[in-house]
Structures are given as C-alpha cells and as structure tokens.
C-alpha cells in the first residue's frame, strides 16, 4: 500500500470509529470495511493503523481476537482474561467499556503479535491524552496567562511526547518475540507516563467524569496489564539478558 492509500484508509477508519458505537456495532462496521482481509494481506499496515486509531479515538472493538485468536489471554499477575464477543456486560473491570472478563485459568498462547497490537493501542491512547492536555494548556488561563506558558507544564507535556515518540520507534521495528515484548513494555510505560502528566496538566477538570480523560486513563491502565505489564515485561527482558550474558542489538542499520 502506498502512503496515500494508507492515509485514505486511516481517515475512513477514524470516521468509522468516531461515528459508530464501540463494541458489536463497530465490530460489524470494521468487518464491512474489510478488516479481516486487510489483516490477512497487509498486517504491517492493518495492525498499527487500526489499533492506534482505537487508542486515539477512545473506541474499542474485538479486533484483538482476530490477531491472537478467541482464546484466554494472559494478564498481569499470572491471571487470565477473555475478550468477550457480543454485547458488553458492565464488568467489574477498571475500564467498564472493555468486554474483558476474568477467567480461572488459561493455556499459553503465542503473544508476540498481540503484544504489538496492544502496544499500538496503548500508543494511540497516550496520544489521545496528550492531545487533550495540550488543548487544555493552550486554552486555560490562570494568573492572566495560558497554562502553556508555564515551564513546569510545558516540560510535563514535552516529557510525555518523548515517551510516546520513543515507544513508537520501538513499535515500528518490532518483529520477533523479544522485540514485541520490548515494544509492549515501552508502549505501556509511555501510556502510563502520559496518563500521569496529562492528568496533572488537566487539573480539576480532568478528574471529572464529564471530561473524556478518565476513559483514556482507565484504558491505558487496563491495557498495560494485558499480555504482560510494562513492569513484568521489563523484568522478563532483564532475565533474558542475564541468561544470554549480553544485550541483543535488535535493530541494525
């Protein structure tokens, strides 16, 4: 696919995700747009584009099951979850919109592709939070000046962008198991960094349920644990380094 086709696809998907209700309706709409064919033919375009847009728009769909299969998924802490198909039952989860259900047990499944997908989703979620916080910093006036003119605020937003850009670079080159593990860890860490800084910049309004921030914060926290949290994956990378006795150089010029 050439860049113009990707851009057209992105805009179509974005429009769909912002106009169709998340959940079963969005699943259907994505199927009608040819999501499964796209995933089969151009996974390197399909996964980053669709999952990142889910994050940016705050929408959700069951597309992860198309990537990893409709199987129990490992979650942080040795737990297992299921991505429910069909209608969303208000769950006990922190992110009530996501149809994630706790399961008593599961069996190991290949997770590299799923980690890349959730990584792109986390990245999009982080971008969404940064957009909200940036807008607020420019609009909101205190002490007779926009918040964006205060260096403490600017540096929090800069720090957020650095984390997101770093994670995107890691995601963009992730291929093998270790690369995907690192990409998921970097994306989880970046989304949690974005949540922390953006929540602070948004102040009181960002703590209300009527402001959209809290939905992205919940999503970032819940998705970070899915297929292994940044904390767990980082520890796993460390164990692997120790076993190998050297640090793998994963990308080459």
């Amino acid at each position, binding site marked *: 696919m050439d860049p113009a086709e990707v851009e057209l696809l992105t805009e179509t998907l974005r429009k769909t995700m912002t106009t169709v209700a998340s959940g079963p309706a969005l699943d259907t709409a994505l199927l009608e747009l040819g999501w499964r064919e796209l995933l089969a033919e151009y996974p390197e375009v399909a996964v980053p584009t669709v999952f990142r847009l889910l994050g940016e728009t705050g929408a959700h769909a069951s597309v992860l099951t198309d990537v990893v299969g409709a199987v129990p998924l490992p979650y942080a802490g040795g737990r297992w979850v299921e991505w429910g198909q069909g209608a969303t039952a208000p769950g006990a989860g922190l992110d009530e919109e996501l149809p994630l259900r706790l399961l008593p047990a599961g069996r190991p499944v290949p997770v590299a592709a799923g980690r890349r997908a959730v990584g792109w989703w986390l990245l999009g979620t982080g971008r969404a939070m940064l957009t909200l916080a940036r807008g607020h910093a420019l609009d909101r006036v205190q002490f007779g000046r926009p918040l964006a003119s205060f260096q403490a605020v*600017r540096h929090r937003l*800069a720090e957020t*962008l650095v984390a997101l850009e770093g994670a995107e*670079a890691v995601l963009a*080159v992730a291929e093998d198991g270790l690369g995907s593990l690192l990409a998921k860890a970097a994306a989880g860490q970046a989304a949690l960094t974005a949540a922390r800084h953006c929540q602070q910049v948004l102040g009181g309004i960002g703590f209300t349920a009527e402001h959209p921030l809290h939905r992205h914060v919940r999503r970032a926290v819940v998705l970070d644990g899915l297929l292994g949290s940044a904390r767990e994956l980082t520890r796993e990378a460390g164990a692997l380094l120790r076993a190998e006795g050297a640090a793998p150089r994963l990308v080459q010029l």
Partner: protein
Amino acid sequence: MSAFTTAAEFRTAVQAWLDEHDLAPGPDRSLDAQVAQLARVRRALFDADWMRYGWPERVGGLGGPAVLRAVLGEEVATRGLAEPGIYSMVEVLTPTLISYASPDLAAEMVPLLLSGREQWCQGFSEPGSGSDLASLTTRAVPQGDHWVVNGQKVWTSLAQYAARCVLLTRTAPGHDGITAFFVDMDTPGITVRPLRTMHGVDEFAEVFFDDVIVPADRMLGRPGDGWRLAMDLLPHERSTCFWHRVAHLYTRLDRLLDQTEAPDDAALGAAYLALHTVRCRSHATQRRLADGAALGPETSVDKVLLATAEQQLFETVRDLLPGVVELTGSPWRSEYLYARAATIYGGTAEIQRNIIARRLLDLGRD
C-alpha cells in the same frame, strides 16, 4: 563512488578488516593516550579508506551515504577502539566545513582531520553564554583584510590538542550578529588552559583570545551566518554521533552483565529497554536522513532519550556493582561520573524540553 550498496555489506567488510588489523588501545587510559589512540585509529581507517566512505569526494572522501559513517563508528565503539565522544567530533566538524568553508579551504583541511593528522575544536560556549549561546560576546572586528578577535571560550573539548578551531564570534548585535571563523590554534594571542573536570579526564579547556588576527578568507559563511552554522550542526551531532554513543553504551551494559554478582532483572531490563528505545529512535532518524529529510527540532527527542538512558545505565551500574564506583580504582568511576554531564552538554535537558514544547508541541512562547 562508494563500492558498497548496502550498510550491511559495508559492515561485513569493515568487520573483516578490523578482525585482521589490531587497533586495540594500550593500557594507558590518560587523556594524552586516548587522543593519541584516536589519531592512530583515524589514520589507519583513513589509509585503508574506511574513514573516507560517506564523505564527499571534494573533501577527500569516497562518497556513499552517511549511514556508512554510522556503521563504521558503531564498529569502532563496539570494539572499544576509541573513546566515542572524541571519535564522533568529526561528525560535527566536517559537515560544518563542507557547508560553510570555501571549497578550497574544505578540500585542504578536512583530510587533515579525517586522517587523524590533526584534532580540531569548537569554540562556542563562553563563561557568560552557556544555554543562552546567542548572547556570546567574543568580539571580531574587521581590520584591513583580516579580523581581530578578543574574548574567552570555555568547555572547549580537546582545545589543548587542537590545531584548528571553529570559532563563534560577535560582529554585530543579536542572533544575526554572530560570525564563525576557522582559526589556527597556533596563532599568536591564543592561550589554552585545560579545566579539571569532575570525572578526572581533562578534555575541556578555557581558551583566551587576545588580539588574535584571523585572515578574512577564514570566515565560515558570511558575516552573520554563525548562529545558523551552530543550529545546522545539531542534527549532525544527533544522528551519526548518537548512533555511535548508543553502540558504546551497549558495550557497557554487556560489561555490567558480565561483572555483576548482584543481578536485578527489573533494573537490568529497564536499562536495556531505555537503550533499545534510543537505538530504535536513532535508527528511525538515520532512516529519515538517508531518505533525504532535513533533520530539525525533533532530534531533541533523541537527545532526551539518549541522556536519560545513559544516566539510567550508569545508576544501574552503581546499584548492581555495589561499592565498585565508590571504593575501587575501576574505570567505572570515571564513566559513572561522566554520565552526569549527559543532561548538560550539547544543550541541557531543560533546553531540549523547551525546544520540544515550543517547536514540536507548538505551545507558543514561554
């Protein structure tokens, strides 16, 4: 033209050559020895042509893409042949000469640097002008067919070894009043005083200019081009130099893995993730450069990621080799201390965040 069509092909050839030619440094870790080793490595690599790839033919190069220089520097850093900070100085100085010196001057001078026959330095910072570089006050005044320079520079790396200096001077008020010269360091009136540093390697110096006469044909660009010259070199520093530095930091993580008896998977993994992140980012920057993109303020992201990763790595070293930095004479001590400068040199971490806020996030003025 370059005989190599891909970076991988070039890497394989360089590796084979380095396997055959032992350029390993001796046991002496003094700065004198490091600089002599650097000259030896450059000279050997230049004479064997490796150092010439990626530079244009009109300055003694053999052409080919800049990525070849990144690959060569990675090999030099990975094998520990030369200290990466001073090795990478050519990446900043050579493009400056290519862009701003007269073609004859660049053709005459650049081979002297690439071949290790000379070291050069950059006279930028001053006692009163650090982060606020544009406030510099070292003055250049025209007099007949030459200029007379008076003032003081500081934090000038390798000035005590340098044969030439890329010098920023003030010729008029404001950003447009900064003018650059290529100055011979043996000109009467120049005094160099090395600075003692916290990490024990006295690579920085103060440089005093007292009625120093500089020929007019040594001006780099035109009067007032100095600020643009300084801004133009940042992307050079942040592409190829960073790739070299990242390669060096990987060797230190390997060394830590080898030496630690108090392993901590979370800390090792976090240090590795930070290094991998900046490597991926630097990789993307190299790719953009290869595609012909002009690098700009987005390289401040690379800079923040690198400085953060470097400091995290050396804090992990101290944590996982308890007492080594504090109580033994190991080289880790100097490297640990030097990492503290990573958020200061080349534009402080705060300046980088200011640039990101202003130029990348478009937050307006602060």
